[in-house]
């Protein structure tokens, strides 16, 4: 037997893909102990890829013009060659669905299988955020339910009414997430069974809430009920779903659907660096293992390395194609760095990471993958060595100052500040404005007051005005937006109508 190489050809075939999948799966499970959902690997055309793009990567979704807009935009940039398509899309579901593009060469397909079907897949299954906030086994069913429900609403109430409602819900999607409370798991049967029940019940609740006749003149009632809700509510969509006075039951259900889909995406937005880093680290490791076992040849590796290098390329800040920190590059470098710290720690590493230096890298990585999100992951594991390698530096932009200030660079005194600044950059809580439901004037004009708690004096973008109109559409009565600065001073920002 002269060679164990699976194939020298660049052309893929289904038997070859299956062969690669078997080998990669064997290595991933047996050698490195990755724990994955079962895989469903689908081969699609580039046009289908654009389709998948435009429905935010979901295999099935309800219909809305914004997905069409996405489609047109993607299609145009793709046609003009301004942008390549991603090699894969992977869906956090059980079985884990990954899309391969038919245009890819065989080494690319192998890379994608390793990256998506074993890298991302194990991350979805292991990471605490995904475990807590999404129900991988139910998402597809739920989407089927959502699509059908919304199509029915369109038939019954008209496309336009549904479209307007969805527009408004989409505007609040980022504020439709429970950040601290674990959502109840999804289940298609449950949803359907409970939907009518819930609709009737909610409507009765809402009516009760807005009963115009008070039970009797109560002294001090005005003072007692100063503010409602008692605590500010962070989940705007949830609050609207449960309390908006004028929504019909079907409208509440649609608000709920958008909210649940937003919730489903919430972990992804918090684990970009980790998720991509993890997947990239594993495709790199698995491919190299294939090579070490002699299953792939040099040509295959060259092809693979070329794509791999492109993926983890990090342009410097002053290069024309700089577009922020590349999550693949940072994540991959950090994962490799952790392995390095375990296998060949330096004195510096021993000082900074006494717990893991010299440890079992597989266990350390597995622990990191399971228990962190981007923010905490960076705060915990970004090493001085990496900061030096990336030549990181932190800049403070204060609009009261004429110039920007460099607050920390990759040097002894700067490491901690730099690491903190970078971690903060991935903190969704500070990346997105903190807007909460503050008060509803139940006895007066039923107006809804939202409060924006400003952080570092950062104001809301002017699109807030537009968003306010959407809130008004959902709430049905006057909506106010106030802004609270760090000294606690309240200022009215906008009102609708």
């Amino acid at each position, binding site marked *: 037997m002269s060679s164990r190489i699976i194939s020298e050809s660049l052309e893929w075939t289904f038997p070859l893909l299956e062969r690669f*999948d078997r080998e990669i799966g064997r290595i991933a499970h047996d050698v490195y102990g990755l724990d994955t959902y079962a895989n469903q690997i689908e081969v699609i055309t580039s046009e289908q890829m654009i389709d998948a793009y435009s429905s935010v990567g979901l295999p099935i979704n309800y219909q809305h013009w914004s997905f*069409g807009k996405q489609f047109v935009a993607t299609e145009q940039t793709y046609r003009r060659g301004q942008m390549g398509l991603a090699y894969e899309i992977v869906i956090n579901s059980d079985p884990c669905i990954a899309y391969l593009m038919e245009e890819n060469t065989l080494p690319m397909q192998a890379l994608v299988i390793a990256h998506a079907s074993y890298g991302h897949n194990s991350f979805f299954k292991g990471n605490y955020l995904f475990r807590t906030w999404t129900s991988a086994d139910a998402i597809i069913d739920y989407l089927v339910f959502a699509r059908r429900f919304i199509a029915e609403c369109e038939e019954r109430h008209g496309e336009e009414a549904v479209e307007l409602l969805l527009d408004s819900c989409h505007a609040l999607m980022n504020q439709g997430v429970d950040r601290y409370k674990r959502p109840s798991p999804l289940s298609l049967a449950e949803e359907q069974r409970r939907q009518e029940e819930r609709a009737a019940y909610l409507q009765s609740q809402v009516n009760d809430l807005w009963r115009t006749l008070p039970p009797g003149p109560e002294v001090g009632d005005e003072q007692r009920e100063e503010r409602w809700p008692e605590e500010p509510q962070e989940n705007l969509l949830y609050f609207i779903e449960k309390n908006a006075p004028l929504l019909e039951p079907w409208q509440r259900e649609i608000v709920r659907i958008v909210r649940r889909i937003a919730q489903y995406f919430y972990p992804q937005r918090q684990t970009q660096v980790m998720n991509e880093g993890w997947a990239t680290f594993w495709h790199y490791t698995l491919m190299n293992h294939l090579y070490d076992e002699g299953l792939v040849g040099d040509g295959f590796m060259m092809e693979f390395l070329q794509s791999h290098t492109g993926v983890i390329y990090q342009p410097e800040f002053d290069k024309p194609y700089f*577009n*922020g920190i590349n999550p693949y590059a940072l994540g991959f470098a950090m994962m490799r760095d952790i392995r390095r710290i375990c296998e060949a720690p330096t004195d510096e590493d021993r000082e900074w990471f006494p717990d893991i230096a010299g440890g079992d890298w597989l266990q350390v990585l597995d622990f990191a993958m399971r228990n962190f999100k981007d923010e905490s992951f960076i705060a915990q594991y970004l090493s001085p060595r990496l900061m030096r390698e990336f030549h990181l530096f932190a800049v403070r932009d204060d609009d009261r100052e004429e*110039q920007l200030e460099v607050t920390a660079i990759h040097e002894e005194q700067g490491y901690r500040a730099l690491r903190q600044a970078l971690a903060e950059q991935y903190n969704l809580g500070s990346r997105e404005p903190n807007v909460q439901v503050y008060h509803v004037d139940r006895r007066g004009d039923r107006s809804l007051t939202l409060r924006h708690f400003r952080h570092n004096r950062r104001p809301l973008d002017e*699109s807030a005005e537009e*968003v306010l109109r959407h809130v008004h559409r959902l709430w049905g009565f006057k909506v106010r937006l106030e802004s609270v600065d760090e000294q606690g001073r309240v200022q009215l920002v906008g009102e609708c109508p």
Partner: protein
Amino acid sequence: MSHFIDRRLNGRNKSAVNRQRFIRRYKSQLKRSVAEAVNKRSITDVDSGERVGIPARDISEPLLHHGSGGTRDQVYPGNREFETGDRIRRPPGGGGQGGGQGKASKDGRGEDDFVFELSREEFMDLLFEDLALPNLVRNQLMGTTEFKNVRAGYATDGSPSNIDVVRSLKGAIARRTALGAPSRARIRELEEELAALLAGGAGERDARVVALREEIDALKTRVAALPFIDSFDLRYQSFTKQPEPTSKAVMLCIMDVSGSMDQVRKNLAKRFFILLYLFLQRNYDQIDLVFIRHHTIAQEVDEQDFFYSRETGGTVVSSALNLAHEILRERYDPSVWNIYAAQASDGDNWDSDSNICRDILVDKLMPLMRYFAYVEITPRQHQSLWYAYQEVMALHPHFAMQEIDGADDIFPVFRELFRREPA
């Protein structure tokens, strides 16, 4: 444990509905920008305007996010010369911009217009969407005078000049093959038998051999006698006459070039004519343009002279109408040509001439016309011509008149003139 699925054969247009919805929603914006383009751009662009940008904010989906301002810390890779505490000039454009450079360049694409490729046809379709040629439908319903010969397959009879040689010979081969087949099969059989006999030592005089030879000869004569071509084989190209709506139009452009019409007004008039021309172009295969300019006397001129030569003098509108009538009588038979006329003027006329104009229009011109549109480009009071034309309008529904103040007015006026008539 992995499951492979080939999805390539599944429908590709999964988001077709979404795209359709997007375009439907987007169309109102597109139409607006097309309308603006027509009003604001120079005339030569109207015909070629193919890329239409929609301001991104019009179709953006609002979200709550941070605006510029306040304090923010941002970490960048690739430091070469900075030390802690260095002060840097705020980069242009990125000043106070959310997320610094990275975000600015990322959002840069999104802030631009959302540019949509429109083919010339689509552009025109949007431009003329609600418009239809007045009376066009009526013209078709009234029965048409022109017919067009259209191929209609093959027939077994027809005139000799329409014989289709290839078809006919193909038929002949088939017929000869079919009719000769039984005889040829028989010949083969007999020849085999003959050969067997001869090989078996039978002599040429043998009765059986002779009989066989005779029969073979008879059959061969029969095969040879099959005619090479028969009248049965002939095929003729067949044509039918299809009624065809008149596809020719002539457009008369009549413009006052007296001293009171300055270049600005001429340009306004030109835009109106161009719109009309483009519009007709979409509906007729062939369009003749006739340019008639007039002051006290009327002249037929070419396009260049029509729009750009300078003339002075008083104004006698009836001269142009008379000339128009002559031209129509000589060159454009109304049963063959759809006749449209557009007249632009500042409204000046000799007072006594206006009544003459009215009479010429009512008696001579309007019966020939599909449509006559009059636009008056004047900021002043209407004069006698306007009132005389109002009388014409009362008598003829396919006469329209409008007043134009500035470039922005042209398109609305045009739409008004050619508003789709309720079916």
